């Protein structure tokens, strides 16, 4: 078998779990080895398919309400126990919010913003945040052809502080879209593009990003597409990137 020893650890490599030096060696090998790169591509596709298929089940809104009511502090309890439960609930919520780096609402437009924030955080935490790695918009844009049911333009970044890092597929409300990642002064910014019609039930033209988000976010609708720009960069940077998109699309 070709490259047997490499292929034994190929999955570990793709999971981003090899020590740093081995990762570098593997990177170099995969770039030069047709057999391993083809194998790696197939396995990445399989991982992606499992990821999409694995997010199969969604809780109903009614169930969410039920659990919220169940764990909410009960006023009729004794004062001491009530305070303890309230404090525990508050700490769990805060810790959970820090874990996901987001505090938001989960209904209507709020739910969409919440999911966008989740997608942004999950992607940056991933060992492989982008599927197409390129700073060239003419490489990234064609990568989406055939993967999403619409086309979009990417802005020219010359003379701006932004650089394109790459892109990946994103799913929002079971609808495919494009997820682009930009860098500005070491801050990563996500730009999501989805079909407006698929989100119309949850967002309208006046939908504004909620202010309680830990991130800065802008969203707008243009040419039948819904754009979201989100990141921990300053509001001015988010706005600048949004303007580049608005001008070019």
């Amino acid at each position: 078998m070709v490259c047997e020893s490499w292929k034994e650890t190929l999955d570990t490599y793709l999971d981003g779990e090899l020590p740093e030096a081995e990762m570098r060696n593997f990177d170099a090998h995969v770039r030069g080895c047709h057999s391993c790169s083809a194998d790696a591509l197939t396995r990445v596709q399989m991982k992606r398919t499992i990821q999409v298929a694995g997010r199969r089940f969604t809780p109903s809104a009614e169930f969410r309400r039920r659990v919220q009511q169940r764990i909410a502090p009960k006023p009729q309890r004794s004062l001491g126990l009530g305070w303890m439960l309230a404090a525990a609930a508050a700490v769990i919520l805060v810790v959970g919010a820090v874990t996901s780096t987001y505090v938001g609402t989960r209904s209507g437009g709020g739910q969409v913003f919440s999911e966008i924030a989740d997608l942004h955080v999950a992607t940056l935490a991933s060992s492989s945040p982008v599927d197409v790695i390129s700073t060239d918009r003419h490489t990234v844009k064609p990568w989406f052809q055939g993967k999403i049911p619409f086309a979009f333009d990417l802005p020219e970044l010359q003379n701006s502080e932004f650089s394109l890092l790459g892109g990946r597929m994103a799913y929002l409300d079971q609808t495919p879209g494009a997820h682009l990642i930009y860098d500005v002064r070491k801050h990563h910014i996500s730009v999501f593009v989805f079909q407006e019609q698929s989100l119309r039930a949850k967002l309208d033209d006046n939908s504004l990003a909620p202010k309680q988000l830990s991130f800065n976010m802008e969203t707008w609708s243009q040419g039948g597409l819904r754009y979201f720009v989100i990141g921990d960069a300053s509001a001015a940077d988010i706005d600048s990137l949004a303007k580049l998109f608005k001008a070019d699309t």
Partner: protein
Amino acid sequence: MPLFDQLYNFAHWLTRNTEEAEDLVQETYVKALKGFSSFQLGTNFRAWMYRILRNTFLTSRTGLRVTMTVPLDPEQDEPELAVENETPETILMNRSNSQLVLSAIDDLPMHHRETLLLCDVEEMSYQEIAETLSIPVGTVMSRLSRARRTLRDNLGRKLQGDEAVKEGKRGTNYGL
């Protein structure tokens, strides 16, 4: 509520049943609330929540039934065989046959299914999975390897089965 969607999805994969998944998630939050004093700030909150959910599942009637039928499977200190080159079937993996993938994941033994989902769906690190499942990192790696190999085999069989069914249908159409 933090991690609500993810925990529900994971619970459904464990229980394979909507009502049981809801009960499991609800119980997880109640237990997390009551036992919050056992959570050490600064440690992994996500792994802690998943561990509560999983332990709750394992002590449920369905969980006990599942674990009693888990086949004995040596997991540690065994050199892994090199994975064969991908079959043509895996190259065909795309959205059009995601139902097959769902079914193939569902067919995995519980220990393999949960490890694969925590890695590929929740994108947990091996260390985080080890904390969640209370097993060594080496066991995480061997379970993942076996899960992926079994999944590939399952998919291959299912795709062949699909083809056979299509052939059969074509055959029976002659008499119509």
